[in-house]
């Protein structure tokens, strides 16, 4: 084992040796080493969040035909640091009538709920926090703390807008959790494991997006809703309820919500890569050739993972800056009458085809074509439905015109 083929364990072993050399027994030495590892992972995640502030601002500027930050440092790269200093030295206002304890807890829980996901993110085959056998469900479980933080913030602010925003946000988050859970079940079925590392390894020859493109679509839509980003940003809806649940937050507390949101979006981009695009690996078996063996180097894998996550994040941004906000009734109708039934049908289809076709050579084309077929049927149904809606909407206009003729 050298630093280059297994950096984390190499450093951990060295640290353990140092601590034991100081006369600490093996148990506490392990715990201290783990603690250092955790701090490193969290700081890495936060460093990404800081970089994302710049990425987000630059990209939105380009989408809106502006330049974006370009004053501080080259290409405005140091803008986020100026932002952090500003946020820290800004006066922190707690509105009168707010529930102080809950008000202060909410941003902490919000960011912590995102940081917690990083405990299982598989950055590379040998760089990850914990490889738990229920990783996929862990993502959902940690998300429920995010929901909780939103409702705490909205309620404790003692502000009507905040409460309305919180209610909308929670209604969105819990509704879209059902298609999200089903979308997570599809890689589970195909890989036969819930461990995110296991799912990544199962894709070393073929990405799951080729087996279940509809599953990916479900995951992207429900992830965007879970994030509360446009077109599902009716929780913030700056034109009607100003900023929603974090309207009363100032200074660093707002900063925590903001960092949490950006990091959450990036993390979901990463999970998009992990669940459907092969995560840190997925070179279609290329790394097994001796000429491409360097692909399974942990540093290369880390770069590949971050790039894929960034592409996923870019898709989320692309949707955010291109789509108008939808109404709450449309949001709920879309979920319960369209996405949820579709998710369940897709789940049944995936389960059945996975069982029937798994050992045969028809597996990959069968799974892919069944997904395409289902998508086509759904589009046909939608077309029929919208046609009927259109005819029905045009109908009441006729009697009025006839009445005018008489």
């Amino acid at each position: 084992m050298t630093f280059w083929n297994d950096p984390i364990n190499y450093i951990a072993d060295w640290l353990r040796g140092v601590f034991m050399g100081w006369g600490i027994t093996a148990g506490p030495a392990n715990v201290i080493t783990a603690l250092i590892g955790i701090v490193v992972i969290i700081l890495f995640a936060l460093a990404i969040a800081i970089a994302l502030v710049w990425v987000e601002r630059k990209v939105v500027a380009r989408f809106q035909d502006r330049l974006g930050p370009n004053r501080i440092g080259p290409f405005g790269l140091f803008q986020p640091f100026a932002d952090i200093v500003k946020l820290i030295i800004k006066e922190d206002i707690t509105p009168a009538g707010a529930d102080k304890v809950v008000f202060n807890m909410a941003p902490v829980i919000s960011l912590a709920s995102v940081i917690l996901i990083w405990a299982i993110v598989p950055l590379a085959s040998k760089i990850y926090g914990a490889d738990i056998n229920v990783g996929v469900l862990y993502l959902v479980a940690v998300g429920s703390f995010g929901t909780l933080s939103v409702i705490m913030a909205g309620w404790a602010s003692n502000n009507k807008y905040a409460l309305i925003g919180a209610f909308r946000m929670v209604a969105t988050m819990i509704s879209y959790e059902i298609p999200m859970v089903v979308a997570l079940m599809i890689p589970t079925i195909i890989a036969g494991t819930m461990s995110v590392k296991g799912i990544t390894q199962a894709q070393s020859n073929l990405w799951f997006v080729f087996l279940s493109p509809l599953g990916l679509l479900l995951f992207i839509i429900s992830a965007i809703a879970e994030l509360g980003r446009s077109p599902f940003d009716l929780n913030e809806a700056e034109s009607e309820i100003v900023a929603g649940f974090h309207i009363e937050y100032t200074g660093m507390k707002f900063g925590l919500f903001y960092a949490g949101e950006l990091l959450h979006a990036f993390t979901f981009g990463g999970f998009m890569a992990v669940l459907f695009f092969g995560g840190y690996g997925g070179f279609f078996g290329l790394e097994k050739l001796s000429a491409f063996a360097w692909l399974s180097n942990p540093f290369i894998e880390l770069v590949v993972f971050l790039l894929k996550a960034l592409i996923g994040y870019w898709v989320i941004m692309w949707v955010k800056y291109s789509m108008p906000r939808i109404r709450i009734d449309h949001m709920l109708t879309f979920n319960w009458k369209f996405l949820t039934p579709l998710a369940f049908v897709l789940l049944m289809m995936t389960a059945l085809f996975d069982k029937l076709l798994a050992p045969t050579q028809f597996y990959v084309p069968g799974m892919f074509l069944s997904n395409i077929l289902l998508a086509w049927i759904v589009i046909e149904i939608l077309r029929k439905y919208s046609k009927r809606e259109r005819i029905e909407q045009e109908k009441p206009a006729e009697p009025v015109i006839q009445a005018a003729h008489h």
Partner: protein
Amino acid sequence: MQSEWLYIGLFLVIGIIVPIVPLVASHFLAPHKPNPIKQSTYECGIETVGESWVQFKAQYYIFALVFLIFDVETVFLFPWALALGKLPLFAVLEGIIFILILIAGLTFTWRKGLLEWA
């Protein structure tokens, strides 16, 4: 196994401490000069009317109720989905029957007009 959950536990503790650090820094570095106008509820400059605890549509509660039931059902499906590759065909069909009952519930709720936002 145990060590992985211990790791998650440690992660939880540090994950809560880390966001508190900038808040503490801000507490010492930021000015603190409260006054009644600054602390008043922000409603775009308009004076606040009535209580901020407004009553909500009962519809939110109904959606939460429907969600709860589906959430519990999907949790049952996770072990099934995981073991699917090693199950005989009829066991897979049992899971599908489970999902069909779920869909029946959704259809029933839909027909009864509970999924309407009105």
